[in-house]
Structure formats: C-alpha cells, structure tokens
C-alpha cells in the first residue's frame, strides 16, 4: 500500500455517521471515496454546497456545478446551494463537524503551515485559514517526512502559518498524534512502524498516550 493510501484509509476513520465534513483539495479529496456506504455524511464545498456527490457520469458534467477544487461534481439527496458568505458562516461559526486538510508542517503546539513557501510564488490560502479556526475538529494529513528526508512534524513551524494551535489530530504515513493541553501525544503507529522509528523521524517531542495503539 502506498503511503497516500495508508494515510487516506486511516483518515476516513475520523468520519462518523451524521457528520458535516469539509475535505481539502488534493489528498483529503481522496478520503471521500473511502467512506463506507453505511456512514451517512454530507460533504461541504466552500464555494457554496452542502452535499457533494460523486463525479458526474461522462457527458453529464455541468460547468455550474463544481467543488472547491474546481472539479465537476454532482449532488446527493438533501444537498443545498448557498452563497460563499453563508458557506463561511457555516465554517467560521463552528457548524462543520470535521475538516480534513493537507499540511506542509505541523508544530508540537498544533500550529499548521500549508499555504506558502517563502521565495516561491504565493498562490493564496483560499479557505484554509477559515477552516482551521472554524471547524469543530481539524485533522491534518501529510507525509511524516519531506522528500529531502526532513521531519515535517516540527518543534516550531518554519513556514508561514495557516493557523495557530488549530490542529486537533495529525495523521501521517507513520503515526497519529493528538494535540492536547499536555502537549503532542502519540496515539497510534501505522502497521510495521515502531515508536522508535516515529521518535527518530519526528523533530517535535511527544508523549505517548496511555491508550496508545500499536497497529
């Protein structure tokens, strides 16, 4: 199983029946495909839709019906359209149960950086800054280690922040962490991954949960 699929399959467990969920662009979008049929959720798209359905059947795509990633989509029964101010009233006002976003760096205090690399072209934060402060629960999914072999789980984020102390849970290809008043807590490791390996590849210090699960 590639690391992306490992992460996505773990992330989908965060989704519970009855939730309203916002999935970020990129890897988080893939989580939608893994939601079990008996789990009823409404997926929110911040451009103005609650109740995203699957991609349209070829030829039936509609340019007026897209998600926040600008992909053509469909709607599910019970969906609703609204304007972008209403959409972010929902997000900022704490009505979205769960947001799953990608990350570039997460700090031990739950700070998140995922929108800007200094020196590179600034593309903009889109709705990410609103989502991380507004959603009831924020789960970040990302590779544990960068392509250059550096830990992306930092003592302090080096990249400009998306939000300060906003991450509730971090899911990487190696482990799952929670961010609590006591600090960063290791709650799981992925199959075949030891706590030693996680320690080695994590710049930030962490404590181990009493409920720690070795997969």
């Amino acid at each position, binding site marked *: 199983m590639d690391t992306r699929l490992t992460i996505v399959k773990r992330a989908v467990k965060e989704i519970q029946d009855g939730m309203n969920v916002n999935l970020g662009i990129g890897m988080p979008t893939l989580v939608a495909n893994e939601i079990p049929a008996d789990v009823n959720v409404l997926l929110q798209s911040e451009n103005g839709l609650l109740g995203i359905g699957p991609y349209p059947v070829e030829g039936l795509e509609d340019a007026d019906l897209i998600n926040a990633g600008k992909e053509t989509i469909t709607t599910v029964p019970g969906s609703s359209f609204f304007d972008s101010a209403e959409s972010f009233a929902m997000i900022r006002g704490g009505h979205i149960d769960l947001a799953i976003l990608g990350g570039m760096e997460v700090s031990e205090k739950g700070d998140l950086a995922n929108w800007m690399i200094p020196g590179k072209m600034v593309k903009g934060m889109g709705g990410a800054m609103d989502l991380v402060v507004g959603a009831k629960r924020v789960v970040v999914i990302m590779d544990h280690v960068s392509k250059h072999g550096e830990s992306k789980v930092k003592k302090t984020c080096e990249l400009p922040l998306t939000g*300060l102390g906003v991450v509730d849970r971090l899911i990487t290809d190696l482990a799952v962490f929670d961010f609590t008043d006591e600090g960063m807590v290791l709650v799981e490791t992925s199959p075949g991954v030891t706590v030693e390996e996680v320690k080695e590849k994590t710049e930030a210090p962490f404590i181990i949960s009493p409920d720690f699960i070795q997969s």
Partner: protein
Amino acid sequence: MSKVYNSFAKAVSDIRDGSTIIVGGFGLCGIPEKSIEALRESGVKDLTIASNNCGTDDQGLGILLANKQIKKMIASYVGENKIFEKQFLSGELEVELSPQGTLAERIRSGGAGIPGFYTATGVGTPIAEGKETKEFNGKTYLLEEGIVGDFALVKAWKADTLGNLVYRKTARNFNPLAAMAGKITIAEVEEIVEAGELKPEEIDTPGVYVQRVLLGTDYAKPIERLTVRKA
C-alpha cells in the same frame, strides 16, 4: 423602469481608470464573461479588482491582466495564472491576499453598511500583520474591513426587468455578495423575464441591489478540472 441594457459596451462605459470593481465567480464558475470582455474592449486601466480568483491566462479576469488593466488584485487564491505571477514578481501588480471566508464577509459587509468586523481567521499568520486585534471572551480576533466597489460585475442565471436575480447551482458563489457591494451593480444573465415571473421566494438577489441587467449569449463556461466517472 426596466433596468435592461442592450449593450455591454454601454453598460460598462462609465467605469473609469482607477475604479474599484467587485467581480463574482469562483474559479471560472459563474464569472461575468461578457462584462469582463466589454471591460477589456473599453481599455480602462489601473483597476482595483476584488474577486476570489483572477481567472486563468486566457479566461475570466486573466484577460484584463494580460491587457495590463489591473493595478491591484484582492483575492484569496491566484494560483492558476502565469501572467499574474510575472506581473506580481515584476512589481507591476499589487496583491492583497484575503482568506476566502474573510473576503466573502468583507464584500457582504461592504454591501451591508458594516465597515469592519472581527474574525479569528488569520490570527498568528502573515495575514494579521498590520491589522488591529481585539479580545472577546479571552480569545484574539482580527479586525477586517468591508469592501465597497464603485462597480460590481455579477453573473446570474435569470433576471427579471427589475433586476431580481436567480443563480444556478454553485455558480451562485460570490455573485450575490458582489451584487450587494457595488455602488453600481451590472448583472449579466442567460435569460430575462418580466417582473412577476420569478417567484418572490426563489429570488436570491433582490433587484434593489442591481442597477443594470444584460442578456449574455454564447457563454463559454469553461471547466477547469473535468472529472467524470464511467456510466
């Protein structure tokens, strides 16, 4: 008292160099294609544009960039545009990034007579630089200011002759907000009906916000990311 104009050129003819314009749409979905084209033809310059995105190299607001008509862009995401990047890096183009929800609320606020509001969005990030903060119940919030446009360009599905507007699916997005925030709001639509033909409960934007209505034809409605499944 019909608000219907027959010429896009005429409808945008009083937009002057240096105007501030709020433009509806998300990506290339629900953008006022015809009004943007008319603006390019008019050649006005030094525009400040508030819109969630700035089109692509050859679509949407991108054609005003290519024609060097935009001085400043207020947006949340501008990633699909190489001309944008070039003009930004050369210093030709000024950019104010605003988080998407903050931008939507700033435009609504401008239209609603609210000069400023507080939000937790962006606290502790580069977006907070130079902005006032205030505590409510022990939590820190940023002061963000409303945006009012000299003009607003919006795209709707249907209008009546009084300027009442109905949008289609997710092409609604920023359009109702832009409509509120323009001192003069120019709405282009795919169908114009008589007053009374739209039901009072289906109207998304009451005509009180709209000064000019135009019928557009041959909409390109480009799709940025075509994603489909097999039947």
